């Protein structure tokens, strides 16, 4: 087990290092001088410019800059935004809970609905419901989610007026200091009347939009793995013993059918993170995805560099965790190559 952990870690560390290398040099390829961007259009004296360069370490050789950069990261310094003058890590950590809340809700939504529909489709294989559902899953899988979001805003928020259009909570009516960063929990803790339901209603559409692609994938996966399990001997045995259908499917079959689904859930984390960029942009959700896109618009390259590194690092880290967990659950993975 320890060897398995060590091996996975050994594979991940070079990836992190390469990631730092790529983001560092990619950003240096951007045309335009970072100092001049910071100085603005008015310009300053050459002496001041040289001083600026020195402060930012830009007069050093590139390899030295890279080593300093890596050293900084190891000390938790991901650079400073040239627009807000705020530490990139601080900005990221302030915004990240919003992304995490949205991502978690989308994943929970996708798992519950996806598994539920996948099981029903498998049990009623070949039925009208099964065909409809598989057709819908192709559509969900093919969905341009940025358009899906606009469509839902148009219908649910605009036409029917059921949910708000953007943001995390009604900022005019409610204000409270963030405690956990999760709006659902914070609004609950604030004790203000209606705050929780406001936060919840803001979350519904983004959750659906972000959860759509994983939902389609999970439903498909659950269906096919359930079909496989349903033809196993032990399911027949359970039926022969006279157990009720619900018990056979829910307890005996589903437990084993879910094993491959767990892997899919792990793989979907990257999809969720990429989808968050689009979803947050559509719903003005103040998370790291929207922040990243805005950093490009403002030519805030330190923020872009740090943001990409942090987001990617996080996805790699979570994937590593999923891998390790999977090894823990499934001995075949642990002892395989």
């Amino acid at each position, binding site marked *: 087990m320890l060897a398995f952990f060590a091996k996975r870690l050994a*594979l991940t560390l*070079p*990836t992190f290092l*390469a*990631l730092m290398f*790529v*983001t560092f040099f*990619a*950003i240096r*390829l*951007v*045309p335009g001088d970072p100092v001049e961007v910071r100085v603005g259009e008015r310009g300053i004296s050459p002496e001041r410019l040289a001083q600026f360069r020195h402060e930012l370490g830009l007069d050093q050789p590139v390899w030295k800059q890279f080593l300093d950069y890596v050293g900084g990261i190891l000390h938790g310094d991901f650079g400073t935004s040239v627009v807000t003058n705020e530490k990139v890590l601080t900005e990221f950590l302030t915004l990240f809970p919003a992304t995490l809340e949205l991502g978690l809700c989308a994943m929970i939504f996708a798992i519950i609905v996806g598994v539920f529909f996948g099981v029903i489709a498998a049990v009623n294989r070949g039925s009208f419901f099964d065909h409809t559902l598989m*057709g819908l899953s*192709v*559509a969900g*899988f*093919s*969905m*341009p989610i*940025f*358009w*899906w979001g*606009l*469509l839902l*805003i*148009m219908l649910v928020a*605009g036409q029917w007026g059921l949910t708000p259009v953007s943001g995390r909570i009604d900022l005019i009516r409610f204000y409270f200091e963030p405690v956990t960063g999760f709006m659902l929990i914070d609004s609950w803790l604030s004790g203000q009347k209606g705050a929780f339901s406001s936060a919840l209603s803001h979350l519904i559409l983004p959750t659906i939009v972000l959860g759509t692609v994983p939902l389609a994938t999970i439903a498909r996966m659950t269906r*096919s793995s359930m*079909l*496989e399990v349903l033809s196993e001997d032990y399911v027949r045995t359970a039926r022969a013993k006279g157990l009720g259908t619900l018990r056979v499917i829910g307890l005996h079959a589903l437990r084993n059918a879910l094993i491959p689904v767990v892997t899919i859930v792990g793989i979907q984390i*990257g*999809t969720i*993170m*990429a*989808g968050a*960029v*689009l979803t947050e*942009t559509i719903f003005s959700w103040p998370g790291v995805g929207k922040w*990243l*896109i805005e950093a*490009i*618009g403002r030519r805030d390259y330190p923020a*872009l560099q740090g943001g*990409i590194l942090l*987001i*990617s690092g996080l*996805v*790699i880290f979570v*994937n590593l965790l999923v891998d390790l967990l999977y090894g823990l659950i499934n001995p075949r993975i642990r002892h395989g190559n």
Partner: protein
Amino acid sequence: MVTEATIAEAKPVSTAPSPLSEFWGSFRENPGAVAGLIILTIIALLAIFADLIAPYSPYEQYRDAVKLPPAFVEGGRAAFLLGTDALGRDTLSRIIHGARISLFIGLTVVTVSIVVGVVLGLMAAFYRGIADVLIMRTMDLIIAVPGLVTAILIVAVLGPNLTNTIVAVTVVYLPRYVRLVRASALGELGKDYVIAAQVSGVGKLRLMFVTVLPNCLAPLIVQAALGVSEAILEAAALGFLGLGAQPPTPEWGSMLADAREFIRSNPWIVTLPGLAILVTVISINLMGDGLRDALDPKLRRS
């Protein structure tokens, strides 16, 4: 029932059914795949003959007909079948020309991915050692980062335009092809026919591209079909974020971005380009599923 007479009458079949007819017979059984193929053919024809079919130029602005709804809705004009956008450009013409751009992106991305993927994948499989490690670790790095984030980084560095969109999306999807080619090539390498070829003195390049490669093609074709739809989606997402094709190019994603501000007042401008993306991607995916079932029975879904 089979009688002796019928056995006697049966002529010996000397040739197996050609791979193509066998493939078609299997593909035809899947109604979704056939539907996908038909729709995709129509879209492809629209894209190829866009100049002839589109009623107007995608760039021409009709100032007297701004933000019109489609002709079949109240307030629409028969002259503009699917209405016009905020600058008075004909939506139908822009969508038809957009099909050209999207299919071009999809096909270019997949073609480049296959060519580069085959070369890198075969190199990794044949030369092993340091080449293998370098290639595969690079691919692992690309896979580890969420696709859209990689694409955003590339476009942010190179600048937002159509060419760089293609570059970015190609980089994002390249690892799949490399991995696929490498894995299937490694699977073939130990087989007798490869060893026989090696023993008979076939050169390394010939062995790679003539002997082994044809046997790795089936999964590659399936991946390529699905890859077109993914490339179209990814490129449209970049366009929507303002990081892809720039206005006034009639790219579906950037058309949606332009239309965003009219989401309340003119829902049609927002609805139609997205519908075009969805229909195209669905038809490619349906067709890809059929291809997979027909080409690779091992992968057949239950």
